């Protein structure tokens, strides 16, 4: 094995940070959702990598990744539903306009 773990970890870190950056800066909720997916996927990849490099004899990491993907799918579906409903109510999915949920 020539390629060390670090070569996988750096791109996922970048990916994760992109996700955070996107989540904080994008005003469009769909874009924010995509950013969340980025972060989730970065984490998923990390799981697989750690499983592969640190505990090669086991499958927990893999299984967990599959589990997370499933959850993420459900979550995305839910989020999209909320966003669509919001859009129906507000004709707008700009997050900085949706500040009713406070106090």
């Amino acid at each position: 094995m020539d390629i060390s773990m670090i070569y996988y970890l750096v791109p996922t870190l970048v990916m994760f940070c992109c996700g955070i950056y996107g989540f904080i800066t994008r005003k469009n909720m769909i874009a924010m959702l995509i950013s969340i997916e980025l972060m989730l996927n970065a984490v998923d990849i990390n799981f697989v990598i750690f499983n592969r490099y640190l505990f090669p004899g086991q499958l927990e990491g893999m299984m967990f990744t599959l589990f997370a993907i499933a959850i993420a799918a459900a979550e995305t579906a839910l989020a999209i539903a909320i966003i669509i409903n919001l859009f129906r109510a507000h004709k707008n999915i700009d997050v900085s306009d949706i500040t009713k949920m406070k106090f």
Partner: protein
Amino acid sequence: MSITLPLLILVIPLFMFLLLGLAGNKMSPRLSGILGCLGMGTTMVLAYIVSFTYFFSGNPDFVDAEAHTRLQWVVFNVDWLSFTDSLVIRLGFLLDPIAALLLVVITTISFMVHLYSMGYMRDHHGVWEKGFQRFYAFLSLFSFSMLGLVVATNIFQMYIFWELVGASSYLLIGFYYPKPSAVLAAKKAFIVTRFADLGFLIGILALSYYTGTFNFMDLTSSQLVSGAYHVNLETAENIKNIFATSAAPTFMGASVLTWALVLIFMGGMGKSAMMPLHIWLPDAMEGPTPVSALIHAATMVVAGVYLVARLFPLYLMEEASLEIITVVGAITAFYAAMVACTQIDIKRVLAFSTISQIAFMMVSLGVARPEFHHGIGYMASMFHLFTHAMFKALLFLCAGALIHAIGSNDYTDMHGLRKHMPVTHITFLIGCLAIAGIIPFAGFFSKDEILTATMGHSTFWYIWMSAVAGLTAFYMFRLYYLIFWWKEHKVREGHHAPHDQPWTMTLPLVILAAISCVAGFVPMGNLVTWNGHEMFPEGASFITNLKALDWTVASISLAVAIIAIILATVMYRKENPLPAKMKQALPALWDWCYHRFYWDELYMFITKSIIFQRVCKPIAWFDRHIIDGTMDGFALVTNKLSYAIRGFQSGNTQTYVWWYLIGVLALGGITILCLL
């Protein structure tokens, strides 16, 4: 003596109060009046029997025949409220010379007033006044309280009934409650006497704390077992020692006993309208006139004198307190007599006259010393209390008859009534002669004894009090002439000519006038003395008082009175410009007298401008703004703080993420730092 009669004396008036108070509305006024009179009449008869038995039966319970000494007898005494083992308020019935004397005075005057009110409390058409039943209920309440006061066996029982007479006085002064002035007068009377009672209460507390008892007999004598009524000097020394030891610290230079006695006297000053607590009594004349006669002339206002007399052996231990009593009494006597010379309202003249006469009694107690004529001052004081009650009630009831006939309180509306109301005229004249001290009317004897006692103590106060006696004769005859002479009576438009009142009103006048004529001959020296010893052990008769007179003093005071009466005759018998000239000659003096030396204004200033404006209002403001403000301030700070931090909850999801991120990084950083 069995317990029945004395108990009935207290129970009948109380029962009448409850009956008339609760069921009065259901009865006709006539019935309630008759019931009230019957109740009081029965009480009077019972009181006469009890007093007569006490004074004249020779029962060894009441008198030690060999020593010629009258004794104290406790008829009954039941525990009412126990504070500690020794300090117990008992309600009882103490029979001794002054109590027996007061029983007679109170029931007599009260019955006269009950009878008189049957006529007075209805208008010229015979219509009963509104609240007639209530009036009789309150009269009964008052009689009950006053009787309870005089027969008290302990100082706290006295205080209880002391408060009750105050309350019944309040109710009766305010009898015409729709009238604002009556309400104000009632309130003033109650509050002023309440203030005085504060002193009384603290005095009682101090006295009872150091002596460990409320009982009069423990306080004033030691021989409880035999019930003897003379101070055992040994016990007197004991009580004095209690106060002299270090256990009883002195306060501001005076012993605690002195303080207690002076404070108790303060209570007496309030009830007996001594300066400077006299201001309520003239205003109390707002009440119906029979009430003024009963409460504010004859009975309740002498309660202060009675209190001092009751505790006299204690006062004797602290001569300083007696000196205070003398000075207060003498100044009040003079002041009230001055003011009485200028008043227009006839009831106010009589009220100031009452103040002045009570002050006479106080002075008499103040100058009484056992060394001088067996403490003649004490006897004289009680004697004057007795005669004054009779003739002053008479004068007030006459004034009531006049007011009822004329419909006004001012003598300016009267003048020249002697032909219109002959009975009232004669009885009023008898009252005036009695109070002026003309022989052989009642006031002559009692006042003479007082002056004798005063002379024995100090020449200065003797001259002072003689001058006041002269003033008394002057203002009473001024009043008499201005009512009955001065000029012909002018019947006002739309009024009948004034005439004498129905028998219910004139009969009490005649009876009281008769008593005023003969009361002076009662050999009081054998009945009431400070230590119970008879003054004339050889026996007394109706001329004892005449024989016993100090004729030097008597002739001087008689001369002073006659000169004063002549002066009054010259000035007021016929309409003439003399009084007006005098008024112009001394405008300032007349003004001050007319305005009662501005005492009321002073009190008004103190209560309204100082207590209300400078104490109550600031406290209320402080409560609303500072205390409440602080509590509201806590709420406000919490509120503001919540508003300040609620900005975090902006609703902007991305801000939350920022905070979250910062938090995670900070926590992570800290963890790493810790691990390193």
